[in-house]
C-alpha cells in the first residue's frame, strides 16, 4: 500500500485576533509514512489539536506546506477522516443515518450505502442500535458511531483528536484495542492526538513529543514492541516501560516551566 503518506514541512500557524498574534505552531516538519500509527503528545495548549486540524484542512496554514501523497492539502477532503473528542455526530440523524452520511455525499447508491454502513456498525458492535439517535447512546457508543462513520467512507488517513479523552479507563482500553485491530485490518495511516503518555505508547509505532508554546517537534520515540502479545504482557515488559519513560521524561521537561509560572 502506498497511499496515505503525509508530508509536512516548515509548517507555521499564527492566530490573529485584532492586534494580537499568537503563534501556535512554529517551523514543524513531519513525515508520516503510509500505514503508520503516529501519536502526538504534548502539554496542553501546545498546538497539537491545531496541527491535526491543519492536516484535516479545517484551518489554513500561515506558511509551510502540507501534502498527502504529493497532493498539497487544500481544505477538507475525503482522503482524511477526523474523529473528534466530542464525537460531532449529527444529532438529528440515527446511528445508521450518521454512518451513511459520508457515503450519501459521495454518491454511493442507497442499497450499497446500507450494506457498507452495516459492515462498520457490526464491526463496532453497534448492531441493534441502527435506529437510535445519538442522545440515546452512552459516550463510548457515540465514539464508536463516530469511528464507524469515519471508516465507512474509507479515508486513507485517520486523524484522531483525543478521541477517548472523555471515557473512563476500562472503556478506553477496550476501544484502544478495538482501534488497533481496525488499524491492522484496514491498513490506515493514523495520527492520534493525546495527552496521555500511556495511551500514546501503547497504541503507536512512533510517538512525537511537541514543545510547549509555540508548538514544534521536540523529539520522536520509536515504539518497538511485539504486538502479538496481550495488553498485560506488553505493559509489563521492560522495553515498554523504558520507552514510556523516555516519552514521559521528554514531556516532563516541557511541563516543568508551567509549574514555575
Amino acid at each position, binding site marked *: 500500500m502506498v497511499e496515505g503518506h503525509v508530508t509536512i514541512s516548515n509548517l507555521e500557524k499564527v492566530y490573529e485576533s485584532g492586534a494580537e498574534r499568537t503563534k501556535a505552531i512554529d517551523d514543524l516538519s513531519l513525515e508520516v509514512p503510509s500505514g503508520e500509527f503516529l501519536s502526538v503528545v504534548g502539554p496542553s495548549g501546545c498546538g497539537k489539536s491545531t496541527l491535526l*486540524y491543519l492536516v*484535516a*484542512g*479545517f484551518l489554513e496554514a500561515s506558511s509551510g506546506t502540507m501534502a498527502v501523497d504529493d497532493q498539497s492539502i487544500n*481544505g*477538507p*477532503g*475525503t482522503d*482524511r*477522516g*477526523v474523529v*473528534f473528542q*466530542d464525537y*460531532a455526530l*449529527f*444529532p*438529528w*440523524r440515527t446511528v445508521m443515518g450518521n454512518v451513511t*452520511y*459520508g457515503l450519501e*455525499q*459521495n454518491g454511493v447508491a442507497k442499497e450499497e450505502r446500507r450494506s457498507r454502513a452495516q459492515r462498520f456498525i457490526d464491526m463496532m458492535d453497534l448492531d441493534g442500535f441502527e435506529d437510535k*439517535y*445519538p*442522545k440515546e447512546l452512552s459516550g463510548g457508543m457515540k465514539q464508536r458511531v463516530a469511528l464507524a*462513520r469515519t471508516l465507512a*467512507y474509507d*479515508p486513507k488517513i485517520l486523524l484522531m483528536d483525543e478521541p477517548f479523552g472523555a471515557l473512563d479507563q476500562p472503556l478506553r482500553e477496550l476501544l484502544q484495542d478495538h482501534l488497533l485491530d481496525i488499524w491492522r485490518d484496514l491498513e490506515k495511516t493514523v495520527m492520534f492526538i493525546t495527552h496521555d503518555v500511556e495511551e500514546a505508547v501503547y497504541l503507536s509505532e512512533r510517538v512525537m513529543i511537541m514543545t510547549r508554546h509555540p508548538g514544534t517537534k521536540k523529539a520522536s520515540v520509536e515504539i518497538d514492541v511485539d504486538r502479538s502479545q496481550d495488553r498485560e504482557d506488553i505493559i509489563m515488559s521492560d522495553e515498554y516501560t523504558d520507552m514510556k519513560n523516555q516519552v514521559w521524561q521528554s514531556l516532563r521537561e516541557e511541563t516543568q516551566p508551567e509549574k514555575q509560572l
Partner: protein
Amino acid sequence: MDVSNKLSFDRTDAVNAGKSVYSLIIVLLIWEIVTQLGMIHYYFLPPLSDILVRFFEMTVDGTLIYHGYLTVRRALVGLVIACTLGIVIGVLTARNRIASWFFDPIIEVGYPVPVIALVPVFLFWFGTGDLSKIVLVAIGCFWPVAINVRNATRDVDENLIWSARMMGTSDRQLLRRVIVPASAPGIISGIQIALPISLIITFVFEMVAGGGGLGHIEIQGVRTFDSVQVYATLIAIMILGFALDRGLRQVRFRLLNWT
C-alpha cells in the same frame, strides 16, 4: 434560551395536572356560591354558571367561532410572514458577513421597540381591516424570530460543520444538510416566543380598532356593561391560546424527536 424547558413545569401539564385540580374545584365552587348569594356585585364577577351558559350560547350561535376564526387568521398569517422573513434574514445574518454587518445593528435597535405601540399609526395607514393587523403582527413577530434564528444558526457547533465538510459536503449543501437541521431547535423556539406576541398584537389591535375578532367582542362586553360576555370571550381566548400552544409543541415534538 429554550422555550420548551422554560415554559413547562416538568409535572405541570394542564392535561395531566389532575393531582392539583382539587384546588381549582374549590375555587370554582366558592366562586359559584359567593356570586349566587350575591356577596359580590354581579357586574364584577357573575356566577360561573351564567358565564358557562353564555359561552355555550355564543359557541352554538357561531359568534365565538366566527370571531375566533378572524383572530386566528390575522395572528397566524402575520406569524407565517414573520417566520418566513425572520428565518431567511436570521440565517443570512448568521452565515454571511455582509448581511451580518447590515442587519446586526438593525436587529439590535429594532428588537426592543414595543411594536404594539404602532397600533394607532397602522390604523391610520391601513385602516381597520385585516391588512393593518396582519402587517403589524408580522413586524412584531419578526424580531424575536430573526434574533433567535440568528443566534441558533451562529452557534451551530463548528465541529459539526467540519465533520460534514470532511465527508464531502459542499458549501451549498451545508446550509440545507447541516446548518438548518442543527439550528432547528432555536428556530422553533423563536416561533414559540413569537406566537403569544402575534396573539397580543391581534387582541390589542382588535380592542383599539374593532373590525371583529375575539378582542373586539371582549372589549364590547366592557363597553356595554355586559361582563358575562367578557368572561365568556375570555374562556374562548383561553382555549384558543391553549390549542395554539399545544399545536406548536406537537410540531416541535414531532420535528425534534432527536433532541
